[in-house]
C-alpha cells in the first residue's frame, strides 16, 4: 500500500527523534559537540575543560530552572525578569554579607524572599490582571533594574565571603565543583516537584488546558502565581550562586543569562506552548549551549562570527525538534 511505503521512507533522523526523548537528544548532542571540539581545537576535549564547561553550564542551568516551570505553565508563559533578578540576588548577597561568612545564610534567606515576592507580583499580573507574561515580566525587569539603581546609586559596596567561592566555584569533591553537585541536587528536587507533587501534576494540567484543569478542581490562578513566584525565587538564587563564581558584582551581571535561559529550556525539549517538558531537558540544554560557547571561545572566533554561528546552531536545533504542527493535514 502506498500509505505504508510512505511511512517507512520517513527520514531516519525523524524516526530516531520520535523514539529518543528530547533531553537525551540534547545530551548526546552536547557530548558530540564536545568531541568535535576536540578535533577542531587540539586540547579542547580534556577533563579540565569538561569540568569547566559543566561548571559554567551549572550557573545557566540553575538560573533556567524557574524559566522551565514558567514555560510549562503555558498561556505563553515566559519570564523576562530573570536577568534582573539574578543581578539583584547577587548584589543583595554581596551587600548583606559584605564578606562575612556568618551572614551567608541570612543573606540567602533574604534574597529568596525578595525573589519570591517579585515573582509573585509577576504572577499576580499574569493570573489576576491577565497581562501577557512577556509584557508584565519585561516591565518587572525594568522595575527591578530601576530598583537596583535606586538602592545602590551605582555604588556597589560589599564583598563576597571567601567560603562562597570555595564551596561553589572551586573543586569540592575530586575535580567536581560544588555548584555542579548543587545543580544535581536541584535537578533531583525539580524532578520531585514536577513528577511527584500535586503542584507539579497540576502545573502540567494548567499548561495544557486551564478550563479543564479548573473544572477538575485545580486552583489555576494559585498555581500560576506560585509558578512565577518560584521562578523569581530560583532566579534570585541563581544570582547568589553566580556570585560565588564572579566574586564581584556589576549592574549588568544577570542580563546575559536571560535569553540563554529560555534557549536552554527550549533546546531541552520543553514545549514553548506549555504543558510538556522536564528539567532534565533544561540541564541538557544548558550543557549544549555552554559547549558551543566554550568551543567558539577556544577556536578564537571573532565576536561577529561567534554570534552568527550561535544563531545558526540555535536555528538548526530548533528545526530538529521545535517544530509546530502544520495547518494543513
Amino acid at each position, binding site marked *: 500500500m502506498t500509505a505504508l511505503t510512505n511511512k517507512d521512507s520517513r527520514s531516519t533522523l525523524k524516526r530516531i527523534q520520535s523514539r529518543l526523548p528530547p533531553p537525551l537528544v540534547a545530551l548526546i548532542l552536547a557530548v558530540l559537540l564536545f568531541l568535535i571540539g576536540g578535533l577542531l581545537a587540539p586540547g579542547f576535549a580534556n577533563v579540565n575543560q569538561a569540568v569547566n564547561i559543566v561548571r559554567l553550564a551549572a550557573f545557566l542551568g540553575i538560573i533556567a530552572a524557574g524559566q522551565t516551570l514558567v514555560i510549562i505553565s503555558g498561556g505563553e508563559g515566559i519570564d523576562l525578569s530573570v536577568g534582573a533578578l539574578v543581578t539583584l540576588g547577587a548584589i543583595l548577597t554581596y551587600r548583606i554579607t559584605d564578606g562575612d561568612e556568618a551572614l551567608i545564610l541570612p543573606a540567602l534567606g533574604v534574597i529568596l524572599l525578595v525573589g519570591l515576592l517579585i515573582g509573585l507580583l509577576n504572577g499576580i499580573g499574569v493570573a489576576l490582571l491577565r497581562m501577557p507574561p512577556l509584557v508584565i515580566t519585561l516591565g518587572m525587569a525594568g522595575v527591578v533594574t530601576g530598583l537596583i539603581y535606586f538602592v545602590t546609586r551605582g555604588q556597589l559596596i560589599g564583598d563576597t565571603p571567601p567560603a562562597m567561592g570555595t564551596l561553589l566555584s572551586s573543586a569540592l569533591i575530586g575535580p567536581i565543583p560544588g555548584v555542579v553537585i548543587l545543580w544535581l541536587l536541584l535537578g533531583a528536587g525539580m524532578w520531585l516537584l514536577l513528577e511527584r*507533587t500535586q503542584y507539579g*501534576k497540576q502545573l502540567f494540567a494548567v499548561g495544557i*488546558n486551564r478550563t479543564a484543569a479548573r473544572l477538575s478542581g485545580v486552583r489555576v490562578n494559585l498555581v500560576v502565581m506560585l509558578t512565577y513566584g518560584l521562578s523569581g525565587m530560583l532566579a534570585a538564587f541563581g544570582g547568589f550562586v553566580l556570585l560565588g563564581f564572579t566574586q564581584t558584582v556589576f549592574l549588568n551581571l544577570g542580563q546575559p543569562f536571560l535569553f540563554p535561559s529560555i534557549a536552554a529550556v527550549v533546546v531541552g525539549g520543553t514545549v514553548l506552548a506549555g504543558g510538556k517538558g522536564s528539567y532534565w531537558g533544561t540541564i541538557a540544554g544548558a550543557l549544549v549551549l555552554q559547549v558551543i560557547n566554550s568551543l567558539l571561545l577556544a577556536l578564537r572566533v571573532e565576536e561577529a562570527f561567534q554570534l552568527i554561528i550561535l544563531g545558526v546552531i540555535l536555528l538548526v536545533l530548533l528545526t530538529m525538534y521545535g517544530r509546530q504542527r502544520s495547518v494543513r493535514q
Partner: protein
Amino acid sequence: MTSFRLTVEKAVKTYGGVTALADGNLDVQAGTVTALLGANGSGKSTLSKILTGVVSPNSGSITLNGAPMRFASPQAARQAGISAVYQELSLIPDLTVAENIWLAHEPLKNGFVSRTLMRQRTQSLLDLFAGLYNRHLTPDALITDLTPDERQLVEILKALSFDPRLIILDEATASLDGQQVNRLFELVTQWKANGMAIVMVSHRMEEIFRIADKASVLRNGRTVGERVIAETSERELVELMIEGAGALHRERAPLVDPANPVRLEVRGLKTSVLHGVDLTVRDGELLGLGGLQGQGQSDLLMALFGAIRSTGQMIVSGEARHFRHPRQAMAADVALVPGDRGSEGLLLIRSIFENLILPSWGSYGTPIRVARAREKGAVIAEELKMVMSSLDAPVNSLSGGNAQKVVIGKWLLRAPKLLLLNDPTKGIDVGAKAEFYSLLRQLRDRGTAILFYSSDDDELLGLCNRVLVMHDGRVSTELFGDRLTHEQLVSASMGTPS
C-alpha cells in the same frame, strides 16, 4: 445549470500510523441530499475534509464531472464549487459577521474592499433566516458577541456566500433550535430544486430521514454501504453503522422512592443567564434536564459545580452551601462531566493515567505514590472497558467514546454522591452510548443522585424518572409518569404551555 457529479473512490488517510480512513467512497450528484453516516471515529469528518481540500489523502481518486481532480488546498476545492459548514466552527472571533462571511472573497471596488457592498450582501443572506435570530445579529456585530446558534447560522451563511455547487453540512444543526432547523431544511429543499448538491453529516437519524435522499455509511474507516432513504429503515442504517445493533433500550423508569434522602435542593438560583431555578434531586434519582439548546442548562450545571458565579440558595447533603470554586463542590462529593470534552474535560496531549487522576492527586500524598494511583486508574479503565494501548497513551489517541470514558472515569474514581452531566453523549457513537446508558443505570441503582442534561430527547425519555424542561433560564415544566412523553417534551421545549 450544468450537472455536477463528484465521486471519491478508495480514499485513504493515515495520521502518524493511525488510519483514519481506510477505504472511503462517496458519490455526490446535483439535486440530491446525501447523508454521510457513521459512528464516531469512523472517518466521516476525514472524508468530508478531503472533499473540501483541508485534508490531503494518502491515496485514492477524486473525480469531478468525469475528470480526475486533486484538491491541493481549500481554495482549489472552493474554485470547484465546494464549500462546507464545519462542525468545529471556522469563524474568527474578533472580526464582524460581514468580515467573516466574506473572508477571502471580499467584494472589491476599485481594488479595495467595499464595506457597503459587504454589508448589503450580508444583510440579504441574514434575511434568509429572518425572525429566527436576536436583533443584535447585524452585519457589523462581532462574532465573539454572538450566541452559539447565531454563530452556527453565520457559518451556514458563510458557506452559502461562495455560491457553491456542493455544500457540505457537517453537523450543521448541532447548535440550532427547532425553528432554525426547520428553516434550514426549507432552504435545503430549495437549493436541491435549484440543482445544488448537498452532503449532510449528522448524528440525528430523525433529520436524515426528513431531508436526505440517500445515505452512505462508514464503519471503521471503510464505506460499507449506500442506501436510498425511501427504501431503508433507521434500524438497517444503525446496523450498518455498528456491527450488531443494540441502540437505546427503552425502559420506563419508576419514580424514585420519596423516602430516599434529598441530595440537592436549589431555590432561586440566578446567574447572568438563569432567572431563578428551583429543583430537588434525591439519592438514586436520575433527574433529566431538557429543553432547546442554550436555555440555561449548561449554566445551571456549571453554577451548581461552583464553576460560574451565582446567587440563590443551595443545600447539598443537608447543608447550606455556596460553591465559589469547583474544588469546594468536589469536597462535597459533587462531580461535573462538562459539555465539551476537548476544551473542558481533557488534557489532550497528556496520558490517560494523568487525566484520570487529575482531580485526585491530593489523595496520594507527597511525594505522590504513583504505583497506587496507577492501580486505581487501571481498575477504572477495566471497569469502563476503555479501548486503549496503555494507560500511558495520550488521550488524543482515543476515539470520542473512549475519551468521554476518561472524563467520566476521573470522577467515578472519587465516588461522587451527586453527578452533574452536561450532554455527555454528544458526538459519541451508538455502541459507546449503549455502554454509557447501562453505566448510568448502575450508578443510579447504587444510590448516586444524577442530574442529566441531554440534547437528545430519546435519552431523557429512556433513562429518566423525571424531566425538568428549561426555557429562557427557568424550569418551565416538570414531566413525569404518564406526562413524560415525546409530544409533551417537544411542546414544553418550545415554550407552549400544555
